[in-house]
Structures are given as structure tokens and as C-alpha cells.
């Protein structure tokens, strides 16, 4: 099944929730909807499912219009951020309920419920009620119920957000494998760039109700089409600074000069915005070619294996992500290093004009 959204717009009480979204989801594809909270991810999924009608626009399945069709008639499944199960039914009945409603034969139901439960590692919990399970098990039940029927569209709305770290990692690793051999279109909403990258597939970045970019996840990551996309698809958000190309050199607002070579070679004269990811900055000199910069240290967050140093200079605040534990003195000026080969360049209209080649972006040191 191919799902096509054509100029979907949703306004509620004069407020635009979804603004002219058009996209085509291929059969069997894994699609990540990445955006901050309130970006419209959930609304878009609800429209895809048929739970809400769009204010304008069409939803096509294999080319035929299903916009007004009731949700019961569409072959969709959905897993919510909250753990939604039928509290009065056992886990077995929960998973079996979509099949029962389809009129599947009893033996077939039993077989499929058990195999799906096994897949989700809840086969020993089938006789329990949902509230007797842990959060992770409840969400596994919800996912099993969504996966047991032959749906053509599986919507996962931040399914791992309410789980603790360990369970989240565990399920996140399993999800792509669970869905790999199915013909189902999977749409997975998340706010975390890291989750999008781990899940792979294709990625649609959403901002204020618009899809700013849609493409293979790694390509979107390495080529954020706009500054907004870069900010969303980067954690911590991408660091920005104004820049100008004149006299054959790229001059940052902080008065640092970069030669117009490598991926900068084709830049025309004019004003630009430079973006650099926090992990591409360093507090230790990574080698020749790096530009030394000075910043006022505002905050240092130490997670144990990494240090996030917040620096302020030339009216901008940047975050430096560095491996290992570093203890810069707060309030003092500190030196950090910028690798010019890893800069994103956006034009005056905030659109990407130059991105570092993928090999360089993936490499660790300059």
C-alpha cells in the first residue's frame, strides 16, 4: 500500500495545526516523524489514521481517496505514548480483540496471539490484566495488539517516551527488527534526533505544522535543508553564528576567517548563517587546521562520559560536546576549537547551501 497525503491542512478554532503537508509513504517503509512537541506530529498521525478529518486536502491509499472513510474501515493500527490497553480484558484478550472483530477463526487467533506475544516477549503474561504489568510490559501489550492484525499502516506515536531509559533502549533496538519483514508502512513519531538516527528509514522533519524536509534519515541528518531542520535534527541543537563571504574568505561574526576551500569553494559573496554541531567542537586542540576561538563559560554539564560546555561569545551561545570529563572554570574565558571542514552554510533565507561531505561528517577527528 502506498499512502499519499495531498496538501493536508488542519485548523482548529482558527489555529493552524497542520499546514499544507504533502508526502508519499512507500509500501513497507519505515518513516520517522521528527519534531519538537506541538510540532503537529500527533495531529498528522491522527489524520493519517482517519481519527480526525483534515480541514482540506486528501489522503490517498494506492491512489484512491479515503479521506472521509471511517477509521474502522481502514487497515490501521496505532500505539500511543500512554500505555493504552483495555483494562477489563486480559493481555490475551487485549491482543486477540482486533482479530476477533475481523471474525478470524479461533485456532488462527490463538496461533497469532501466541506468536505475536512471543515476539514481544510477553508470552508468560497472557493471563494477567494490564494493570498488573510493568510500564514496559503494558506498552509491549499495546504494540502486540497493533501488530497482530494485518494492518497496512502502523502508527507509533512516541511509544517509548514514558518508559525508563533501559527499557526504551531495549525496545528501540527490537522495533526495526520486528517490523523488518512486513509490508506495512510504519510511521514513528519522536522528538529525539538520536532515536530517529537509530531507527533509520526515512525521516520527515516537522516544524510548526509543516514538513520541512522528507528523505532518507541519514541524508536529512547530513544535509538539513533549513536552519530549523538543523536545529530540530541535532541534540543539543546546532550552534549558529552569522557570517559573510567577502574578499575570497568566509568571515564569521566573531572575526574568525575561514579560507574558501573544500565544500566552501563555490560560495558567492554575501551574508550567510553558519551551523556547527556541538560534537564537532572541541575543548582540546584536534589538530592543525582547527580554528581556536574564545568564549565565556556559562555552564558545564557533566553526564559522566561526556561534558557539555555552554560558552558565550559575540552575542551567541554555543554548546560544545566533548568526550570525557572536563572542568572549565565557570565565568572565565576559555579556548575551544572549531573544525572548518565541518561547517554547515545556510543562505540569508536560512536554506542550506553547503554541507560537509558525509565522510568528513562521520569521521571523529579532523
Amino acid at each position, binding site marked *: 500500500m502506498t499512502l499519499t497525503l495531498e496538501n493536508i491542512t488542519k485548523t482548529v478554532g482558527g489555529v493552524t495545526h497542520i499546514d499544507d503537508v504533502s508526502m508519499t509513504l512507500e509500501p513497507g517503509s519505515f518513516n520517522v516523524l521528527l519534531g519538537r512537541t506541538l510540532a503537529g506530529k500527533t495531529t498528522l498521525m491522527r489524520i493519517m489514521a482517519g*481519527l480526525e478529518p483534515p480541514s482540506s486536502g486528501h489522503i490517498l491509499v494506492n491512489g484512491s481517496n479515503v479521506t472521509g472513510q471511517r477509521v474502522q474501515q481502514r487497515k490501521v493500527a496505532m500505539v500511543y505514548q500512554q500505555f493504552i490497553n483495555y483494562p477489563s*480484558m486480559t493481555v490475551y484478550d487485549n491482543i486477540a480483540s482486533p482479530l476477533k472483530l475481523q471474525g478470524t477463526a479461533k485456532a488462527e487467533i490463538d496461533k497469532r496471539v501466541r506468536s505475536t506475544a512471543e515476539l514481544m516477549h510477553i508470552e508468560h503474561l497472557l493471563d494477567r490484566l494490564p494493570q498488573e504489568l510493568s510500564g514496559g510490559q503494558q506498552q509491549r501489550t499495546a504494540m502486540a495488539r497493533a501488530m497482530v492484525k494485518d494492518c497496512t499502516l502502523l502508527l507509533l506515536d512516541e511509544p517509548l517516551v514514558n518508559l525508563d531509559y533501559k527499557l526504551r533502549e531495549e525496545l528501540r533496538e527490537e522495533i526495526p527488527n520486528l517490523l523488518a519483514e512486513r509490508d506495512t508502512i510504519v510511521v514513528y513519531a519522536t522528538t529525539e534526533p538520536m532515536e530517529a538516527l537509530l531507527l533509520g528509514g526515512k525521516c520527515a522533519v516537522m516544524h510548526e505544522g509543516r514538513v520541512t524536509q522528507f528523505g532518507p534519515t541519514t541524508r536529512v541528518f547530513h544535509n538539513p535543508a533549513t536552519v530549523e531542520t538543523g536545529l530540530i535534527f541535532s541534540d543539543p541543537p546546532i550552534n549558529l553564528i552569522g557570517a559573510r563571504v567577502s574578499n575570497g574568505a568566509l568571515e564569521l561574526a566573531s572575526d574568525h576567517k575561514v579560507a574558501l576551500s573544500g565544500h566552501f569553494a563555490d560560495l558567492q559573496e554575501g551574508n550567510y548563517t553558519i551551523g556547527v554541531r556541538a560534537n564537532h567542537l572541541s575543548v582540546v586542540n584536534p589538530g592543525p587546521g582547527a580554528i581556536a576561538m574564545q568564549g565565556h563559560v556559562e555552564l558545564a554539564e557533566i553526564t559522566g562520559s561526556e561534558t557539555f560546555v555552554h560558552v558565550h561569545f559575540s552575542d551567541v551561545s554555543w554548546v560544545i560536546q566533548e568526550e570525557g570529563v572536563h572542568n572549565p572554570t565557570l565565568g572565565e574565558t576559555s579556548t575551544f576549537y572549531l573544525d572548518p571542514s565541518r561547517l554547515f552554510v545556510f543562505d540569508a533565507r536560512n536554506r542550506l547551501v553547503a554541507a560537509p561531505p558525509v565522510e568528513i561528517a562521520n569521521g571523529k577527528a579532523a
Partner: protein
Amino acid sequence: MKFQKRHIALLVYILFLLLPIYWLFNMSIKTNTEILGSMTLFPDNPTLANYATILTDPAWYSGYINSMIYVSINVVISLTVALPAAYAFSRFNFTGDKHLFFWLLTNRMAPPAVFLLPFFQLYSSVGLFDTHIAVALAHCLFNVPLAVWILEGFMSGIPKEIDETAYIDGYSFPRFFATIFIPLIRSGIGVTAFFCFMFSWVELLLARTLTSVDAKPIVATMTRTVSASGLDWGVLAAAGVLTIVPGALVIWFVRNYIAKGFAMGRV
């Protein structure tokens, strides 16, 4: 020491609460001579004659039957009407929903006596006077708003996503409502039924005015007996005890639900 003090206070409290009920029961197993003759804490000659009178005399026991019939009808109607209404209030936004919800409640703000005359006139003219359904319908005016209000609170506690998940799974609305939603708000339905029962069971004014013979409720029978056959204290007390019994039974069954309802802040 502190523990003991608290004990005493509680005992005194319960004693005061139970004293009238005990006195009623005490009277019901005494003879009229003893009731009027002297004050005794325990009956000298306990007798069940008063109860026998009530349970054998149709003028008495038909009152209980009538009351139970119209109370049951009322509870059923209230719930059937209030369940979909409460669902609409809790799940949908429609023009004027807040106003309508408030307007429903205002029906309970007027004393029942206000509606006495219109009901009497209306039911007489359409031939509903002295029927069970007449009293049941009249009580709906007070019970439906209350039922909608209580049920709405319970329903709003159920996440909307459960409804949606059910639709996605393929449930039609009626099937979802009956097999998934109703079990989730069981306690709410219990509490609502209890309150409807209680109001309808103890309500005297409307029930007495809208009936004469065929649907005469027990509360009316009791008040009329006072003037009709002199003062048969013992029988009257026995009738009182028997009137308490159904209420006590219902409270016993829904006591856990009511605690839950209080916790949810809607009762």
C-alpha cells in the same frame, strides 16, 4: 491512654447515630400498650405481630411493591438516558455544551414542590395519574441531571485514546460502549444508580401527589396511616424499619464504589 479516649469518643458518636434507629426497631417489636404505657429500653414482651400485619395486609405491602416498581423504573430510565448524554459531554465539543451542562444541574436547584402543580395537571390530563411510570418520570427531572453529572466525571477519567484504539481495532461504537466502556465505569454506574435510588426511594411530595391508590408508595401509606386508623405506633415503626432495609442493602453493595466516587470528586 490516647487510644482509649479516641475509642470513647467514637463509641459515643455511634451511640448517638444509632439511637433513633434502635428506638424505631425497639418500638416495632413492642405492643402499642407498652409503647404508650412506659419507657422501656428493651421490650417486655417482644412481638413480631406488627411485622406480620404489614406483610399480610395488602394495603401495607403493596406500598413497598409500588415504591420498588417506580424506583426501579426510574433508575433504569435515568441510567439509559444519562449514559449517552454523559458520554457526549465528556467526549465531544459542541456549541453550548458547557451551558447545557450547567442548565441540567439547575434543574436540581429548584425544590421539588415547584414542579408539583405542573406535573399533577399534566399527568392528569394525559391519563398518567396514579401510575408507576408517572412517579418514575417525575423523579427523572431530578435524577437525570445528577446521573449525567456523576457519570461525566467518571467518563472523563477514562482516556480518550481507549475509545480511539477501540475504533482502530474495528469496534463499532455500540459494541465498544457495551463491551469496553461500560465495564470501565462500572463503579460510576453503581454510584449513580445508588443516588437515583436514594432520591426516588425517600422522595415523598411528588410520589404522594401523583398517586392515589394503584401506585401509592410506602412513604405515603405511612403518613396516611397516622390519620386514618388512629396511631398504630407499633405497625408504623415496623414499616419504618422495613423502609430502611432496602436502602441499607443498596448502600452495603455500593459502599466501595461510593468511596471511589468521593475520591474522584464528583459525588
